[in-house]
């Protein structure tokens, strides 16, 4: 997908929108937080990557997906009440 890279998975396209680098689906305007536009799965970190993910019932694995193609755009580990991490890249 053409555009200016802003992360490993996202670009800013010709229309100054943030877009999925895989399918081009847009996630809001450039320079603004994009995560609200993504699909989000939150599950306990417990067991998330296999048996050794122990003792982590409280901790959530947040996975942000592209609504267009389902590509995994970013992850966070977080407590439920904590906000999303916001990354802003100006290109």
């Amino acid at each position, binding site marked *: 997908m053409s555009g200016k890279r802003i992360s490993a998975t996202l670009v800013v396209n010709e229309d100054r929108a943030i877009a999925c680098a895989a399918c081009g689906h847009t996630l809001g305007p450039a320079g603004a937080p994009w995560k609200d536009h993504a699909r989000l799965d939150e599950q306990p970190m417990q067991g998330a990557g296999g048996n*050794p993910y122990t003792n982590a019932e409280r901790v959530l*694995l947040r*996975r942000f997906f592209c609504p267009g193609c389902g590509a995994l755009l970013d992850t966070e580990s977080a407590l439920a009440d904590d906000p999303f991490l916001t990354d802003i*890249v100006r290109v």
Partner: protein
Amino acid sequence: MDPITFSIIRHRLFRVIDEAVITLKHVSGSAITNEGHDLMVSLYRADGSLLMGGVGFLHHLTSAAEACKAVIRRFEGDIGEGDVFLTNCPYTAALHTSDIYLVAPIHHEGRLVAWSACFVHVYDIGAMVPGGFSPDSRDIFTEGFSSPGIKLVEGGEMRRDVMDTLLNMVRAPEMVALDLSSMIAANNVARERMGALIEKYGADAVDEACGALVDQSETLLRKRLRELPDGRWEARQYFDIEGETCRVLLAMTKEGDELTFDFTGSSPQSHYGINCTYWASWGGFFAPLFPLLCYDITWNDGVLRPIRMIAPEGSVVNCTRPAPVSLATVGTIQSVNNAACTCIAKMLSASEKYAEEATAVWHGSHFAIFMFGLNQRRQEAIGILTETFGGAGGARTWADGIDVGGEIPNPIGRMANVETTEATFPVRYLFRRARPDTGGPGRWRGGNALEFALVQHDSPEGGINYVVSGKGTEFSMSEGLGGGYAGAPCAYRWVHNNRASEAGRNVNPFPTSLDEMTGEAETISWGVFPLKGEDALYVRSDGGGGFGDPLEREPARVQADVEAGMVSAEVAAAVYGVVMANGTVDEGATAARRETLRAARLAAPVAAAAE
């Protein structure tokens, strides 16, 4: 300055540090210094600013600069040729009291021209707990001897009164004396070699080259920063101590050729000694910054110039005296490292040119087990288990993280052989291996972590004690990047075989996994514990962070991981969507499985609604 002379002087400065490091290792002769490379020697300019940092524990490069500057302020007019000063006050420069800095002025024809500084983690510092890591200390006063600056050597002569006073306050004074003499020897070598360099090229030429070297680093880093996009990146680290949850929040802003690390919002300082002083946090983010952004730039004050830090007073990243800090180096400083690694990596991956330099977090918790007691020869044995340097590599954007592959802030650590530890401490290992499924899943997998278990063996006292300073047992501290998962958290288990024995249950003396252990496994994470009788200690460190979408991982790589026992077939199917049949990838089933997983993703709610 002509480029040839400049090139030769620069190379010679490297050699000065290298020689001093070798001297330090030779004289010290201790395992933590020689095996763990838990040391640092660097050169500083006359004003105390960093001239050339050596490859050691990188947190110290900037803190030792502060040590030099503090000595310059405190001893102005009383800094003579052949003097050596000691500083280990965390509120002045040091990371914690056990990490002693010895800084020494270098004179030429009576004029102060440079400083050398080094550090080692000394054998003991007289804190509550032998070795210095004191989970039960609630203030700096119970963390042992602490000096904001004292002259240890005057005009080449050891100040016996000072030395004796210091040694009077520590356990195993002969070992501490050896640590100090190793640092004095290293400073001596640095001074002699700098002297020879100045003899050959002249003081002015060397000074000019040093100035040019610092300017060059600044120019190169600013140029690199300009090549990277402007932006603001966030990272968050949690850690859990005795029911307290601490946060380190970092927002890193890059504007033009400058970089700001803002820790606003981080938790108030803790009751426990995991806090960082201001200079510990400052060093904490430079430790990953040097190798991640300046891998081809000389590590010196020029790198510091474009960088700014905001650290709220009274927080875990800038605690107020007399808050305890003895576990800072395995506590908050690791979170500062990790958060900085994540923000820098996000910035790098926003650039076509530098994406390959990005990495998920390595060895996030930096678990540490500290042992003390009598060994099998009835000698006092105090020391860290060098598995703390085992580590686990974060995934790169082009390659997997390295299983048990070390860490970023100490680029050349290594762990001791099992046979070395069994000969030093009264313990026997039950197993030591890379633990499958601990590396964070991703298109590139995080490096797997270490797991091992110990029982006492031939102990004259029936056992030995250990300190666990566990954070990262609930939270994964090695965050993933670009969709990669964080690595698995740490685990510490006190396996009560003694109780099992007393209850008449058979205790398996040779279990090869936690599952095969007979006694009840109690989860522990903080404090001082005994390793006695038939009881066992099980430790699993945390895995490296992954990079990218696990569903994008080539099935052949998943198969290779399953074959090597690095990923289980269950995780291959559940997380990577790769279905194995008779040891090879079932391509049809894999495609179907991945399709199902993708469909589930598209059925997830939109994040705005979830928030």
